[in-house]
Each structure stands twice: as structure tokens, then as C-alpha cells.
């Protein structure tokens, strides 16, 4: 224990206080925080700030940019129909994907959660999630092959005699939708799994015992209780789809390109960083707004699924 001495109010005397080792170590430890926080500030916060700043710069075609304060990038983004259309398309396809992932992921996850054996549940979940880590590039590529005229479904349909000659479906609108679904379905499953699992199975049994057939049990009991989780999952898929570059880029034609694709083209192909930055800021703002709004909606609708079940309580009131 270290001792700290200070002159005290009593003349000629000293006050001795003990400084606990925790405080000393703590100071040293807090110093260490400079490393992660510093990295985050310099290499995360500042780049974002720079992006915001650069969005007001003037672009010099083919030669970088010129520091300035101009709104021309934003004006261009809002006034040119092309970019407005791309933003709207991005919102639409993201919403569509969220709905599709929900419709398809929900029955899947529900069945998985109600499997009798914990082992198979784990296996099922692992399998469902297994493609999550794989780069979007490979997953999109797989579908471009599967939907191609030369190696995929096109060949099968031709061989079966359904089509006159092998047709490819990628890139195209169907491919984009399928690709986005494929890529984000595991997210939805993962998100739904937690909230569906939390619903006490005895509630379904109680409902059946009271005379409700499986469908009605689902409609009256399971669905209402799973709504918050489902909504949260849908919002997440929506936001993720909004920001996805690879899938529309590989599996979509220009008509299917979303904001991220446009932005990247501007930055890498046109070398117009300020404009790309401006569109990024707009995208970020839209995402932030939507995320906040839906977050509030989902949060308020939350129902505590444990209220009806037994929670061990001490000291019961009668």
C-alpha cells in the first residue's frame, strides 16, 4: 500500500493517506487506452469526418479534388434523376429483400427451433449460418454460375426441353433478388432464432390443449410473441441490403445497381471522390434516419415473453 503525505492544516504536521494500488494501476491502465481509442479516433472517426468534408470539395475531373466549400455535389445528387432513381431503387430492393428474407426465414427458423433434439437444432443452425462468413464475391459468383446459360439452370431447362435454347438469368433482376436473398437469409435466421427460441413451448401446448389447431395456435400465440424479433431482423436485413455493393454489382445489370455500386463507380472509375463522398453522406443519413425510426417502433412494441411463464420469485404476494 503506497502512502501519500501532504502538509496538513495542523502546523508542523502531515496528513498521511493511503493510495490504494488500484488507483495507481488504474492510471497506468487508462493510459493504455490511448492505443485502441487513438486508433479508433484517427482511423475511424477522422476518415468519416474527412468524407463529410470532402463532400463539399470541388472535383477536378481526372486530377483529384480542390479544397473548397461547394454544394455542387449535393445539388447534382438531388437534381439528377438518375441518382434519385437509384436511391429509390435501393430503398425498394432493400425493403423487398427484408420482406422476402422474413417470409422465407420465419418458417425455417420456427421449424428449427421446435426440433426435438438439441443436437439437430445446433446442426441445423450451424448449417443455416454456415454461408455467412463467405465473401459476398464467392456467393454471388455461385449464383451467376447457377443462373448462367452455359453451366446452370439454363442448361437444365434446355435439357429438359422447357426452353428452346439455354438462357442465362444473370446478370439481371431475378439474379439480383435471388442473390440478395441468398446472402442475407442467414442473418435473418440468426436473428429470428433467438427470439423464437425464447417463446415458451408450453404456451403452444397450452393453446392446443385449449382447442386451437396448429395454425390457430400459431396465429394467436406464436406470431404476436415473435413480432418484435421478426421486426428487428427485418430492419437489420433492410439496412444491410442498403449498404451492399457486391451482389448488385455482380448479379445485376445497370438497371439493378444500388447506391453503393454508383458510389463506388464514381470513386474508382470516375475518380470523382467528392461526389462519391456526397452520395455516401446522403446514404448514411438515410440509413441513420431509418434505423432510428424503426428502432423506436420496434422497441415500443416489445412484449415480455416471460411474463406468463414461471419465473422463480421469492417472497410471493398473494
Amino acid at each position, binding site marked *: 500500500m503506497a502512502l501519500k503525505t501532504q502538509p496538513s492544516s495542523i502546523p508542523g504536521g502531515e496528513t498521511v493517506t493511503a493510495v490504494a494500488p488500484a488507483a495507481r*494501476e488504474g492510471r497506468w491502465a487508462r493510459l493504455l487506452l490511448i492505443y485502441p481509442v487513438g486508433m479508433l479516433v484517427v482511423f475511424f472517426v477522422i476518415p468519416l469526418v474527412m468524407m463529410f468534408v470532402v463532400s463539399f470539395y470541388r472535383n477536378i475531373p481526372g486530377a483529384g479534388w480542390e479544397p473548397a466549400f461547394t454544394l455542387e455535389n449535393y445539388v447534382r445528387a438531388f437534381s439528377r434523376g438518375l441518382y434519385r432513381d437509384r436511391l429509390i431503387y435501393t430503398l425498394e430492393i432493400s425493403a423487398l429483400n427484408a420482406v422476402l428474407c422474413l417470409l422465407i426465414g420465419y418458417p425455417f427458423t420456427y421449424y428449427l427451433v421446435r426440433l426435438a433434439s438439441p443436437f439437430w437444432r445446433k446442426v441445423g443452425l450451424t448449417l443455416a449460418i454456415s454461408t455467412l462468413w463467405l465473401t459476398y464475391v464467392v*456467393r454471388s459468383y455461385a449464383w451467376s454460375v447457377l443462373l448462367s446459360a452455359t453451366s446452370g439452370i439454363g442448361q437444365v431447362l434446355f435439357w429438359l426441353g422447357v426452353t428452346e435454347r439455354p438462357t442465362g438469368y444473370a446478370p439481371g433482376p431475378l439474379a439480383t433478388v435471388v442473390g440478395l436473398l441468398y446472402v442475407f437469409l442467414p442473418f435473418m435466421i440468426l436473428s429470428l432464432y433467438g427470439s423464437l427460441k425464447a417463446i415458451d413451448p408450453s404456451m403452444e401446448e397450452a393453446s392446443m390443449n385449449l382447442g386451437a389447431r396448429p395454425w390457430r395456435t400459431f396465429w394467436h400465440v406464436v406470431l404476436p410473441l415473435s413480432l418484435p424479433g421478426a421486426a428487428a431482423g427485418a430492419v437489420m436485413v433492410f439496412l444491410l441490403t442498403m449498404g451492399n455493393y457486391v451482389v448488385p454489382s455482380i448479379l445485376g445489370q445497370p438497371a439493378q445497381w444500388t447506391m453503393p455500386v454508383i458510389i463506388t463507380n464514381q470513386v474508382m472509375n470516375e475518380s470523382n471522390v467528392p461526389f462519391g463522398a456526397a452520395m455516401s453522406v446522403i446514404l448514411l443519413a438515410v440509413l441513420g434516419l431509418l434505423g432510428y425510426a424503426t428502432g423506436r417502433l420496434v422497441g415500443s412494441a416489445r412484449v415480455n415473453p416471460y411474463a406468463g411463464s414461471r419465473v422463480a420469485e421469492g417472497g410471493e404476494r398473494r
Partner: protein
Amino acid sequence: MGRGVRYRDPVVWSVRLAFWVVLAFLFVPLVILAAVSFHPGRFMTFPPQGLSWRWYETLFTSSQWLDPIRNSLLVAFASSLIATTMALVLALVLSRYPVRFGGAFRRLGMLPLLLPPVIMGVAYVAFFHAIGFSGRIENLIISHAVFNAPFPLMLISAGLNKVGKELEESAMNLGARPGVVLRTVTLPLIRADIFAGALLAFILSLNEYIVAFLVAGFTVVTLPIELFASLRYSYSPVIAAASVVFILGTAALVAMADRMAGGLWD
């Protein structure tokens, strides 16, 4: 307790069917890729023409592919190292000492999760160009490190919570000074989580496309970048072979990470 009672109810049957259809949906594309990679011909015809390793041979002998593999591994390794050390310091200090802006720092650490990678990439382009250091491999390493740091942060924080203050306090009660407690009690207990976090950051970096492309795409080519470019400008089943290697490698790493962290799913 069995819940799988066989009701002869059409709703139950259709849900069961949907389950298997979705599973097939998730795996068939990957199987097709594998099929293409083993197909001797350049194009996959139906019915298939046989098996061949030739595309894998090409993959592992041509520098077109070996260089990106090397780059990817290098970037992944370095960035996961930085990401994990960042996460470790942040998690440890914040959970054991009261820090004035502790809550804010923790939120800051998790913030990259909320951002779409493409926007992050554009921000990096602006940043690195402004400070005059464009297109370097170091940029990529740092970008990946910072961007992926939330993942080891989550794992290590969860691990620390499980360890709990009581174990450390009882060690101190028995006479161990804080530094010793850290070394002999805390770190060994979260070792698995640290490893799993690093592995996770590694996997994410390996598989990341858009930030890598934006930050250093023309100078440092990683495997996803090479894959993407090949898709655009050529057609070769070597791409499929590379993809299969990617899939298997990632699967192995994820299995390892899952083993270590005892189940990653939140």
C-alpha cells in the same frame, strides 16, 4: 421431452417441406461451384463430363492467384493482430477500471458494426488521399483492423463478463497483485475468447471485398478482389476452384473459432 408429435396437419407438413427446401437453397449453389471446379471442360454442361483436377493445378501454380492469396493472408494476419490487441486493451481496461468516458469508448469500439462497408471505404479513400498515403498495403491493414475490431471486442467482453470480478477478487484476497492476477487468472481464462476473436477478425478480413477494393484495390490485390476482377473480365473455372478453396478454408477457420468460443451465436 419430445415435441415432435406427428400431427397429420397440412400446415405442419408444409413447414417441414419449407425447411428442407431452404436448406437445399443454401447449399446447392456451393455444390454447383464445386461441380464446376471439378469439371474438365471450360463450361459446365448438363449432363456433366467427368472429374478433373486441372483447374486446381492452375490455381496453385499461377502467380495470378498465388499473389492475391499471399496478400490476403498477410493482410488478414496483420489486421486481425491489431484488431484483437485493440479489442483486448479496450475490453480489459473498461471492464476493470472506472473510466470517465468509458461508456462512450465502448460504444465507439462497437460503432464500425453499424456502418456499411462501402461508406467506410469511401471515407478511407478521402482520408488516405488527403494525407497523401494512397494505395499502400498498410492502409488496407489498418482499415481492416479498425473496421473488424468490434468482433473480437464482443467476444472478449463476453468472456470477461463470464469470468466475473469474483475470481479476480479472490485472487487478490489471496495476495496476488493486479498485474499477477491479470497474468495468472484473467488472461488464461479468456484465452479461448481472444483466440476466437482473432480468428474471427482474420476470417472477416480474408473475405472482405469492398473496403479492400476502395482502399488499395489497384495496387494490392487480395483474393476477393482477384475473384471479382476475373469474373468481370474473363471466364475460367479456375475461379470456381479458387472459390472452393476459399469456402473450405473459411469453413475450417469458422469451425475452429466456434470450438474455441464454445458457440459464437451471441
